[in-house]
């Protein structure tokens, strides 16, 4: 077993250096207001060592086949509800392994996000806000990387693992600045251009780096600024990530782990996520696709949840066994749920009015269930919440104050939607 390294470096160090650089640079107005640097510093101290994992079920997983089953009703579909490790809480029978770990999770069953568009739904869930003209909000990953991440961390703080291509998503950091944008590991491969190009030997690389550093040292003698320092430092940072390239290699986990997580893309991606969290990455989002089941909803859910259930349970076990669950917030979300009404193609369509989100780990009351839908799942009858409430909850769970402000261009912008509040019932 790998020795788990949970240290994110000394928080005190985290505060000093980059806070200085940030305010000296005024980069894109991220740290415009003088007061912000210290507020962010406080937030970092509070959240030191906390991590977030989001499993995003792309396309919109059905709440009725997962967290809020309605067996034996017009809308319930063919599957049974099964008991879980939490007495009185039932989930769909396609989640047998997850059901056994229900005492590690909490359910929010009264989610109404009021938008049935894939792209907007995803933005709403990941930013905790409805889209507005004139401003884009940072994704949860950027906020987490910004407020929880240690500045001395060797690895990027915001990583997305999905089936598509690799790249760097600066957009999703919005006004927080590109430093907090996502590093996308397409198909679980390492970040683009991380590895040495063919033809450049270790020796040659070291020699040219030595020459570069000599030049930098000379230049810094008379023309040192925060920006030139940041530039020179970025090469050291890249070197540190490069030296830890093995973190991105799930092959190092061995066949036993591979078997437990399942020999398919999602299993490998979730295992990679665990490696990254262990290695000190603040936020990892793993996408699992193919939940947009406008036809054959039930067959697709057998397949997709069949892939999801075992690795997700293995991940919860691993986090718990390693003592990481109490410092790692785990969230399972989609862009929306699916219609209670079953269409003529045995499909379910987009449904944002009454669906569920599961979460657990850091700061979350184990086994809690909040919110209710009616007998056929067509509406929320108790404790309706939206993505803003959830966003507040995630931040509170990891010890952050969602009511603080960022100050892009000296203008206060609340970290989470000021019209919403955390869901206190599921917080410890």
């Amino acid at each position, binding site marked *: 077993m790998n020795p788990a390294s949970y240290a994110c470096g000394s928080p005190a160090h985290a505060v000093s250096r980059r806070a200085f650089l940030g305010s000296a*640079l*005024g*980069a*894109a*107005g*991220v740290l415009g207001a003088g007061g912000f640097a210290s507020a962010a510093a406080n937030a970092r101290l509070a959240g030191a060592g906390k991590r977030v994992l989001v499993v995003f079920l792309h396309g919109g997983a059905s709440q009725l086949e997962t967290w809020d089953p309605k067996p034996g009703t017009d809308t319930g579909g063919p599957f049974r509800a099964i008991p879980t490790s939490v007495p009185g809480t039932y989930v769909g029978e396609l989640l047998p392994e997850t059901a056994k770990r229900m005492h590690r999770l909490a359910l929010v069953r009264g989610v109404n996000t009021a938008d049935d568009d894939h792209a907007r739904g995803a933005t709403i869930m990941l930013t905790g806000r409805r889209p507005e*003209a*004139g401003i884009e909000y940072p994704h949860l990953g950027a906020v987490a990387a910004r407020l929880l991440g240690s500045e001395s961390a060797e690895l*990027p703080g915001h990583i997305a693992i999905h089936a598509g291509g690799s790249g*760097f998503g*600066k*957009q999703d950091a*919005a*006004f927080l*600045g*590109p*430093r907090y*944008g996502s*590093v996308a590991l397409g198909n679980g491969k390492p*970040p*683009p*251009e*991380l*590895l*040495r*190009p063919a033809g*450049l030997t270790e020796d*040659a690389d070291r*020699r*040219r*780096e030595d*020459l*570069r550093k*000599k*030049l*930098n040292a*000379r*230049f*810094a003698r*008379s*023309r040192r*600024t925060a*920006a*030139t320092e*940041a*530039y*020179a*430092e*970025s*090469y050291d*940072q*890249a070197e540190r*990530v490069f030296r830890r390239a093995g973190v991105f290699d799930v092959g190092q986990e061995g066949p036993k782990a591979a078997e437990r997580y399942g020999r398919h893309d999602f299993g490998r991606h979730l295992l990679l996520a665990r490696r990254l969290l262990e290695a000190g990455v603040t936020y990892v989002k793993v996408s699992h696709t193919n939940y947009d089941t406008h036809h054959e909803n039930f067959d697709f859910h057998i397949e997709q949840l069949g892939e999801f259930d075992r690795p997700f349970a293995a991940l919860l076990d691993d986090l718990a066994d390693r003592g990481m669950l109490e410092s790692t917030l785990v969230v399972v979300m989609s862009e929306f749920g699916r219609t209670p009404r079953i269409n003529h193609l045995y499909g379910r369509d987009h449904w944002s009015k009454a669906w569920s989100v599961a979460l657990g780990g850091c700061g979350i009351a184990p086994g809690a269930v909040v919110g209710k839908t009616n007998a056929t799942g067509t509406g929320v009858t108790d404790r309706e919440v939206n993505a803003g409430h959830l966003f507040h909850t995630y931040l509170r769970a990891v010890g952050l104050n969602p009511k603080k402000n960022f100050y892009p*261009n*000296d*203008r206060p912008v609340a970290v989470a939607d000021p019209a919403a509040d955390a869901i206190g019932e599921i917080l410890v």
Partner: protein
Amino acid sequence: MPLPLPAVTAWVLCIGFPAPPGPPLHTEIDRLIAAGYPGYDRKAAPIAADDEFLRRVSLDLAGTVPTAAEARAFIADRDPAKRERLIDRLLAGYGYGRRMADHFDVVFMERRPDAKVPRAAWEAYLRESFAGNKSYAVLAREILGADGVDPGARARAKFFLDRKLEPGTVVKDISRVFLGRNIQCAQCHDHPNVEAFKQSEYYGLLAFLNRTFLFPSAEAAGAVIAEKADGEVTFVSVFDPAKKQKGTPPRVRGLDPVADPPAVKGKEYKVAPGPNVRPVPAYSRRARLAEAVTSPKNPAFARTAANRLWALMTGRGLVHPLDMDHPDNPPSHPELLALLADRFAAANYNVKWLLREIALSKTYQRSSEGPADAPEDRYLAAAVKPLSPEQFAYAMLQATGFADAERRALGAAASDAALAAKLAPHVGPFRARFGSRGGEPEDGFTATLDQTLFVKHGGAVRGLCTPRPGNTADRVAKLTDPAAAADELFLSVLTRYPTAGERADVAEFLKASGPPPAAAAEAVWALVAAAEFRFNH
């Protein structure tokens, strides 16, 4: 080499504008900068050496670094007027139009993805405008008066069309870009922190455009701007408990409102609205916008333009940030900004003239090796400015000798435009990595992991460093004398001769690094990856 004309004649030929009377602006700049700091003359950095000046002004006015041959020639030139000659040569060169197009593209469009106007046409429009030294007021009037209807002049409508004529964005950006005032917060109420930014100012600007819409639809790729004959602007402050509704005619702050002429019943339209018809009103509010913004009675226009051009050269606005010009954020040198604005307006907004005067000033020509604790806004030393993504790309293409090799490959057909066409496709990857997020102003500096890996391991930069006939690695590899190799390397990449220590370092590096071509390529990489190359200093 340009003909040895007397400087003044050369200047008139180059810019097409006789120097205005009174003391030259560049000496006035130096006088007012010196007056802004006690003991300035004693504490300010000395004038930069020739190599430092050559690199700086080439990057600022041509957007790239000079060739090794140009560097050798300039350093060896004994003519006392050589800096002035260089400035004039750069202002007349192809690189100037491209550099200004790249810079003002970001000022005007802020790296928005193309929506309705393709980037090539827009770049050509900007390049030709600046190369031909179009008055900045004319340029602003063309952009703010464009409707996108004439296919030959559609590019200039990009400012409106690619913002989809979204009123909040358009009004915010007209005010920021042309008036130096970020009044976005005044959309919903008077600005909470900036007393001078009033809600009425925002809506006064909006009233020029409130009748304007995209025809046939906002979604259509070929949409053009159309206008109705009626519609008023009203607004309520979200802070006002009484929710009192106010109205405003079109108005630029400080100017008289632009009243509508009395409407004649039945004659409101030149082309009446109808199904699939683009209406044309008898009286256009939008048509008044460009003249109001650029009116001589509106000092904010010349002041903002002068401040932006000053910042382009010195790395910092006299009003800083550039779009926060209000009484609580006064200019660092108020008298200087007023003078620049007045003279710029009196010179009919002659951009080349203003840039030339700034470049001629001692303030601009100071070394960037200044006193360690010098306050940035006192100009005791030249600023160390990060290269823009485009400057970084073009400097990389020149420093690695990619441009030399392409010039050589083109042979007799090597015109500026032909070479530019070979270089331009290589700029995209730099823009993608180093450019700001679309729709955000590009200021500050960040060095992110992807940017650094792009330089460190990326195929694009590695490909540029690799030896090919006529490029830098090739030339360096062919020099058997290690000192000559080091000279060629440093002049090509860093526009200076190496120090004795650096010569020794390079000699040792080349000796230890195997076959000369591969060793030279890695040496080129070490220099382009150095901080000295990433900044204009």
